[in-house]
């Protein structure tokens, strides 16, 4: 059951992938009592970097101070290890399917430079929004919906609704 899409490469059937992803998520809840996450790990690296540059700034700030303590390093955290696992897992799958390659993926209608600028701005917005929304597509939407939290459904609708709205304005980037 392969899903041919990108030229010369095959992906796993989306429903099979979704079922497997659901099982990973279910196992995560069963073992840890919480769902999956991603943006939280990046937040930990931000907290670590700011704490290293100026400990006094980090401990006096209303936001960073929530995530630093004297006996626990901010990188010694479940999500950080989980995201390191994601890197390794994706690498293994990429190796298995022959997709390991350094490249900038973009529509033939735009340059690599445009793509990278869009990726940078998108990352800044997503990072900012994930803090305001208390989690990203993994932690707030996917995991939040699996436990039937209202917050998860609202976040998902806001993300995808805005995606469709914004799609018209930036269509030249993609189609």
């Amino acid at each position, binding site marked *: 059951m392969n899903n041919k*899409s*990108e030229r010369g490469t095959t*992906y796993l059937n989306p429903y099979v*992938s979704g079922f*497997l*992803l*659901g099982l990973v998520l279910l196992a995560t809840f*069963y*073992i*840890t009592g919480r769902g*999956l996450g991603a*943006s939280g790990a*990046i*937040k930990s690296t*931000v907290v670590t970097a700011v704490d290293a540059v100026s400990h006094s700034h980090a401990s006096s700030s*209303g936001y*960073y101070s929530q995530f630093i303590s004297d006996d626990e390093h901010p990188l*010694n955290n479940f*999500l*950080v*290890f989980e995201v390191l*696992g994601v890197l*390794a*897992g*994706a*690498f293994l*799958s*990429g190796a298995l399917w022959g997709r*390991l*390659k*350094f490249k*900038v*993926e973009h529509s033939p209608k735009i340059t690599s430079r445009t793509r990278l600028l869009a*990726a940078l701005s*998108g*990352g*800044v*917005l*997503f*990072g900012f*929004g*994930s*803090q*305001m*929304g208390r989690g990203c*597509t993994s932690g707030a939407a*996917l995991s939040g*919906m699996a436990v*039937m939290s209202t*917050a998860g459904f*609202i*976040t*998902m609708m*806001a*993300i995808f609704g*805005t995606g*469709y709205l914004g*799609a018209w304005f*930036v269509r030249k*980037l993609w189609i």
Partner: protein
Amino acid sequence: MGPLIPQEIIDPGWSNVIALLIGLGFGFVLESAGFSSSRKLAGIFYLYDFTVLRVFMTAVVTAMVGLMYFNYLGWIDYSLIYTNPLYIRSAIVGGVIMGFGFILGGYCPGTSVCAVGIGKIDAMVFTGGMFLGILAFSEAYPLLEHLYNQEPLGPVKIYDSLGMSPGLFAFLLIALSVAAFFVGSYILGKVKKVEY
């Protein structure tokens, strides 16, 4: 029985090892599904690829129904499972900002890490952008704190918000997902193919 770590059935000292293994499975499945390609992900917004809808909703439904069965069979104590707290305004504002980030950048945080794993340079730049965005939020926190903490409503469940039973809500969500899969396949046959 479960959840195992909160009840210390598994020693919390194993937490990071388990995190690494869970992440390994998460990353492997995401990459196998094609979530390491921004053009494949963006297809959901231009209706030329429905992988995001199919994978995402199948995963939500699988985990949701699984948790309900585990609870029914007494395998987990659902009251110990984390339910995201509801802050309507910050969830909407955050979600809208993330939506613009998604359509501009082509990734979300999890999928960008996944794409970094196979060498996508645009994903590395996206991840760097996230670092800056989170830094900006944290530095501007005194200005944003009011909106961020406005109206805490606690761990509200969607079936309570809608005034129905958990079983009925789960049934409706499954029916809606299946309908969306059919609509997606129908649209896919109608739109112009995009080569990527």
